[in-house]
């Protein structure tokens, strides 16, 4: 139990750390310039940007909604004792950056926590669906809605819930797809032991 609490606390600390750094980066543009995905800078050796790109945001609404979803989902995952949240974060942080570097040379700057937020939300739904038989359909329904939204956005090439003209950057549905796939990959990796310990209330918050 002590180990479980320790790992859970580490997960919560990770969530708060990511949220905290995102806020600091947004408040200090010079710090943000050091973290953002900058294609030329990465190619000239600043590889940390592949990992830190999600910590940078380009508008107040961008950071607000991203940290709301990521914060809530991250804290919920760790409160419920679901394992390997760090793996979801790592996947959703690094894979999009690598993909853009290899396949999207026209994209010079990228940032935003939404990939991690999507991954965290999807991971929480998957873990909850696995643990709770009674609400399984609700969690799978939410997951299906998320998947549909991402699919429609990727097909249309435009966001559904955001007016593209109102934001100072191009919306990339691929970030959400990769976050979602990261959650699926992580749950397959941790299956069937998705919680830290098997307790009667482990599926409940």
């Amino acid at each position: 139990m002590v180990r479980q609490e320790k790992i859970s606390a580490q997960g919560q600390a990770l969530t708060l750390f990511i949220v905290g750094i995102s806020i600091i980066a947004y408040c200090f543009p010079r710090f943000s310039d050091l973290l953002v995905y900058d294609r030329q800078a990465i190619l000239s050796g600043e590889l940390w940007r592949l990992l830190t790109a999600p910590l940078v945001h380009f508008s107040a609404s961008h950071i607000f909604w991203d940290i709301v979803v990521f914060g809530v989902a991250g804290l919920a995952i760790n409160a419920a004792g679901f394992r390997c949240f760090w793996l979801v974060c790592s996947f959703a942080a690094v894979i999009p950056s690598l993909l853009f570097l290899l396949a999207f040379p026209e994209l010079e700057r990228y940032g935003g926590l939404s990939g991690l937020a999507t991954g965290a939300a999807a991971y929480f739904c998957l873990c909850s669906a696995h643990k709770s038989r009674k609400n399984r359909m609700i969690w799978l329904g939410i997951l299906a809605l998320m998947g549909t939204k991402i699919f429609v956005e990727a097909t249309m090439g435009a966001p559904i819930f955001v007016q593209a003209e109102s934001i100072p950057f191009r919306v990339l549905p691929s970030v959400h797809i990769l976050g979602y796939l990261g959650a699926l990959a992580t749950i397959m990796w941790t299956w069937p032991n998705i919680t830290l310990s098997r307790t009667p209330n482990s599926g409940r918050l």
Partner: protein
Amino acid sequence: MPSKSGAISFIIIFIFFSLMGCAEFYGKRQSRYTSSVVEYLYPEKEVAEVPAIPSLSLPLRVGIAFVPESGVGPEAKRLSEKEKMDLMKRISSEFRTLPFVKDIELIPSGYLTNGGGFTNLDQIRTMYGVDVIALLSHDQVQHTDEGMLSLSYWTIVGAYIIKGEKNDTSTMVDAVLYDIPSRKMLFRAPGTSHIKGSSTLVNLSEQLRADSLNGFHLAADDLVTNLQGELNRFKEKVKEMPESYAIQHKPGYTGGGSLGAGYVVTLLIFGGLALWSGRKK
């Protein structure tokens, strides 16, 4: 009947004066070849454009052009259009590595008119769609002196094989970046070179042309090096003085995931309901 020695003396005197005619005494010579951004942009000295705050929309489309020549130099020593294009390509390579530069347009000299000023730049902006232009100007001075070896010109062969001409070529190429809509100079970078050489009398003009071109190439290389430093200083300046430079990003340059209020609220409501339902039971 002239004597034999008289005939020999006549031949020697004839050859002497013939050689004197062949070997031309040039003395010191200097030629200057120059162009000026100020003369191009402000042909009427009393009129000066008042710059506004530049609004740089990233990524930038940058044009590069040589301003028209203003100095009176020998036509033969002027840079050809091909040589100008080669130099512009060399300089543009530095701009191409910049993340905030999307395209580089090499603008032929024919599109810039003498004393065209910002009116001419506006025309170029319309034609090429460039926001910022790098105007290249130059100042090249060539000196030629005769060394001791030029005494060998007294023999005809010496003028062909002995390098008695000492050439000295000083070149400066200057790049000035202007934001065309605001008429604001963003920054400038110079490049200089100095070449010393020698040539035979017969080969002098060819050698001067080669030195001239080589001088431009070396100055362009120096300019590229200086440009890197100036660009870094300019980036810092933009960050430190946001009131002096408005930076915007064109769509497609920056990307990110965006969730949106509607989606987040929907997600939170459904998730909350699922959790509440789980607790209730």
